[in-house]
């Protein structure tokens, strides 16, 4: 069952008349219980896509086209009150910066309990008790004592776990996690990823995971959407995507990652050129300026199903064939 479906989402910045397009016709979907990874270059529009699903786009940013359905309901038609109720109950988010997204003046226990109280799912005392339980689940030692502390008294890794506890306590149906482990060390990252998988499986929570780490993608995702230049350029199940990427950008991205089993000290494969900023996107295929397969056809914009097959899609006129 499709839980979330985003179609043709377009987000622009700036005043009418002088608008800059940052997200350009993004479509993606998440099924109930599934983990979908959203990957891509820095600035490709991953965070903006996530924020707009929650209706949390910052000032100056406008969704100018597209439709977002959650559980079949069009989020644009919900009253602000209904949207707020959805957030924190059925839809939760973990942000890129754990420390700055927690309130420094409220104890972590109260912050974890908040969504239960706000949504009237538990009384104050019961909610606090469940918050302590949740803090324990996410691996915080001495949870009862920690619950009474302020975020500033906790390490970055612990704050991250507090965010996760706060997001998961109401057993949301969809969790959007924006780089939830980027600021963490690998041993802590491993704990958090295990925890997300465990809690996800237990409550049937679907996860939209934004990351730039292909290792993390491989270890967590069922399906992957690859973004480049404000567009989804490839979408496929994780195993076939890694084994046989179709879009040249995906192929190059996979080849650039240094691997432990690679002979050391040799030149690494690298993608020539720089990530173009939205102001400098080339006409036609956005990857054209760095693509080794580009030709005259690529001055037109390839649609996502230009190279479709089964449930795979790729936006390319000359897709890669077979294992890379």
């Amino acid at each position: 069952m499709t839980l979330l479906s985003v179609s043709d989402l377009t987000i622009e910045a700036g005043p009418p008349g002088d608008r800059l397009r940052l997200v350009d016709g993004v479509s993606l979907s998440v099924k109930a219980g599934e983990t979908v990874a959203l990957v891509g270059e820095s600035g490709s529009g991953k965070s903006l896509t996530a924020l707009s699903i929650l209706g949390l786009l910052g000032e100056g940013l406008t969704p100018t086209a597209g439709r977002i359905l959650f559980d079949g309901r069009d989020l644009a038609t919900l009253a602000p009150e209904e949207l707020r109720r959805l957030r924190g109950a059925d839809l939760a988010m973990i942000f890129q910066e754990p420390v700055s997204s927690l309130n420094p003046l409220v104890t972590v226990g109260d912050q974890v309990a908040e969504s239960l109280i706000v949504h009237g799912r538990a009384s104050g005392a019961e909610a606090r008790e469940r918050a302590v339980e949740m803090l324990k689940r996410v691996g915080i030692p001495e949870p009862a004592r920690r619950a009474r502390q302020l975020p500033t008294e906790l390490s970055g890794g612990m704050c991250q776990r507090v965010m996760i506890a706060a997001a998961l306590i109401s057993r949301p149906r969809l969790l959007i996690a924006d780089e939830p482990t980027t600021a963490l060390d690998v041993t802590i990252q491993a704990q958090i990823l295990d925890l997300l998988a465990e809690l996800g499986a237990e409550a049937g929570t679907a996860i939209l995971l934004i990351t730039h780490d292909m290792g993390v993608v491989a270890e967590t995702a069922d399906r992957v959407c690859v973004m480049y230049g404000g567009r989804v350029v490839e979408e496929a199940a994780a195993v076939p995507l890694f084994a046989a990427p179709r879009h040249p950008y995906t192929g190059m991205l996979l080849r650039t990652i240094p691997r432990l089993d690679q002979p050391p000290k040799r030149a690494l494969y690298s993608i020539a050129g720089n990530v173009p900023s939205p102001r400098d996107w080339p006409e036609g295929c956005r990857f054209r300026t760095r693509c080794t397969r580009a030709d005259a056809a690529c001055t037109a914009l390839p649609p996502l199903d230009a190279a479709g097959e089964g449930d795979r899609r790729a936006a390319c006129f000359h897709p890669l064939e077979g294992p890379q």
Partner: protein
Amino acid sequence: MTLLSIEDLKVHFPVRTGRFGGAKGLVKAVDGVSLSLAERETLAVVGESGCGKSTTGNAVLGLAPVTAGRILFEGRDMARFDEAERKAAWREMQVVFQDPVSALNPRQSIARSIAEPLVIHGHPSAEIPGRVDELMELVGLNPDQRNRRPGALSGGQRQRVVIARALALSPKLVICDEPVSALDVSIQSQILNLLMRLQEELGLAYLFIAHDLSVVRHIADRVAVMYLGIVVEEGPASKVFGDPQHPYTEALLSAIPVPDPALKGRRQRIRLEGDLPSPLDPPPGCPFVTRCPIAEPACREARPALVDVDEGHRVRCRVRAPEGAANS
């Protein structure tokens, strides 16, 4: 030949800890680190956030106070250098930090930034523009862009500017503190290739501080693994990655996500419980004892010694590398 040797280095910072800045504490950021680096060699220092990697590099650069221990450059104790000798030594060692944005003056052209060390060290001014062009070409920048401000460059190009500036005085040693972590993945490999090529062409030695172990595996000759201010394992990269001995190194390596979804769920991961303890309040004895899966009660008693387990491979663990069993 040994270019740099760090002997039993300690860097302790006094800090105020109480909520109102009352109580005094001591952060033992680096607490007895010994390392050496040969010419043309890459020594990587890895370990979790806050374990003292940057502080070690900063102490070498004179940017962190040395509480105890010695730093020898080309065999000579830097603490005994006079002003002229220190200045000469600092020509020979340069640094590339993580964040190319804050490393460059946004109002200066990149040519001026690259020329800065040349000007400071009294390079003849007539030769400077030529040298700047040469450096830009060396790091893969087009000299036509010399008048640009850093704001008009991409992150990868800015890091190239920082590297060009570090190479201006032809150093022997470059301390790279997380040189690619702020860059997008597709740009990281460009910069790593550049660093490897420059090492080859110019005979540079790198003290390479990083937390991305896949990057370290690729670029390092030797690796030192730090935990809470001390080195817990050190050796040739092939040994530390291929045959890790310290339980922390094992956990660290097993936690690296592998980019192959076909292996999903089939890998055995060593799961550590708990966080890195606060450096203000380290556990007695072995610093890893609070998270170690094979700890014994005796581990709390004394800090284990760094014991040779193999040629150039040293491990600090009383279970895996007991004292007195060296080279057996």
